[in-house]
């Protein structure tokens, strides 16, 4: 058994790797080939290939019947996607930036999220709302938010946030096949775009065959006994870097939530019961959001086991444009390392 594992690992190191954007595009392309009901609509998804490469190359293979550029009216095309989904198709609508959710919010939240319930299940809404999130590239307060907590707070939508190419592919297949609306939030910095280099980590080997990753299954990206770090998206990689830097001093476990709705509280609780110390790292705002929610679940489920908690988040302020200011407010590897050390004292 041990011998077989070693062989597998040796093969893994020499495998071809793909960027997160290519993994997502591969999953979308495969679903379109398999199912005539799947199509993509959004701003700049066709000729441009998505401004963050989320639909790169799809137009060439599938043409304009399947890959449709939309005018700048999120209300119009997200509403059209909701209608198409209710009529039995499986649209993937791209909201170019999650920050723009406000201009299509009635379609997202009053229609997409609720129509299954409002209709007494006479219709359902099997669509994917794919959207770019996150900062670190000086795009200021209206183009840099993650809004993880906002989307996860509103019931009726599943919320998915991949951190690696392998996870993105499996989660995208699951999202497209799901009979409920799924918000698929991809972090721009993880995509592997030429002008926005990704950190080490998101580019991974990806199995060529289709596979799914179940929603509500967090992934322990690094095992450890001393401190639990719960995070998602870009900050999975920053947390891993912080944990590796502290190796030998503090043994940190890094839990990648992967989906917020449904939320895998069991994996979080299991880890916290083991370590008794919890750090939540979130690129979203500090108050009324994900970090507070995870700590609440941990407190409700493992109060007696907890000895210290901490959260590392964006402050409750619009995200600055200036590079040094943005770097200051966006949780960095050192901020995470400091928090891990603080709770271990």
């Amino acid at each position, binding site marked *: 058994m041990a011998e077989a594992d070693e062989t597998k690992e040796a093969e893994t*190191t*020499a*495998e*071809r*790797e*793909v*960027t997160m954007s290519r993994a997502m595009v591969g999953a979308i392309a495969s679903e379109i080939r398999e199912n005539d009901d799947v199509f993509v609509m959004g701003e700049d998804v066709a000729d441009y290939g998505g401004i963050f490469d989320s639909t790169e190359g799809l137009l060439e293979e599938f043409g304009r019947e399947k890959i449709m550029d939309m005018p700048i009216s999120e209300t119009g095309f997200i509403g059209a996607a909701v209608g198409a989904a209710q009529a039995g198709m499986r649209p993937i609508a791209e909201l170019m930036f999650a920050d723009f959710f406000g201009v299509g919010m009635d379609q997202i939240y009053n229609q997409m999220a609720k129509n299954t319930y409002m209709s007494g299940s006479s219709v359902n809404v099997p669509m994917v709302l794919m959207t770019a999130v996150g900062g670190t590239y000086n795009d200021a307060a209206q183009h840099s938010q993650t809004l993880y907590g906002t989307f996860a707070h509103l019931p009726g939508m599943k919320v998915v946030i991949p951190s690696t190419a392998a996870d993105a592919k499996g989660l995208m297949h699951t999202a497209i096949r799901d009979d409920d609306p799924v918000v698929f939030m991809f972090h721009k910095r993880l995509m*592997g*775009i*030429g*002008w926005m*280099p990704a950190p080490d980590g998101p*580019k991974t080997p990806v199995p060529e065959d289709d596979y799914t990753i179940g929603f509500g299954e967090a992934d322990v990206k690094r095992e450890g006994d001393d401190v639990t770090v719960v995070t998602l998206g870009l900050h999975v990689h920053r947390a891993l870097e912080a944990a590796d830097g502290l190796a030998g001093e503090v043994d940190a476990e890094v839990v990648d939530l992967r989906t917020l709705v449904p939320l895998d509280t069991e994996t979080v609780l299991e880890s916290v019961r083991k370590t008794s110390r919890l750090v939540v790292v979130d690129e979203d705002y500090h108050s009324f959001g994900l970090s507070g929610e995870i700590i609440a679940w941990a407190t409700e489920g493992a109060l007696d086991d907890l000895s210290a908690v901490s959260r590392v988040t964006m402050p409750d302020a619009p995200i600055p444009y200036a590079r040094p200011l943005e770097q200051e407010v966006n949780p960095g590897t050192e901020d995470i390392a400091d928090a891990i050390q603080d709770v271990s004292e």
Partner: protein
Amino acid sequence: MSGGTVVVDSETVWPADSEDVEEAVVSNWFVREGTAVTEGDPIAEIQIEKVSIDVPAPTTGEITEILIDEQAEFQRGDVLAQVSSA
């Protein structure tokens, strides 16, 4: 003849509409040293003035050396990597 070394020559993928451009950047490597490749597989993505271009494996074999790091700039005609052909 098997067992030779084939270079990944950036000149071969240089697009006609970038004739007046001399530099590019390696955006992504999809392989590491030791990765087995099939002729035509994309092994890297380079960026020439914001245009991304895939670099295919010139032969079936194994990547023996990567000569330009990810995010590094190179000159048109530079060799990006070496492949030992199967």
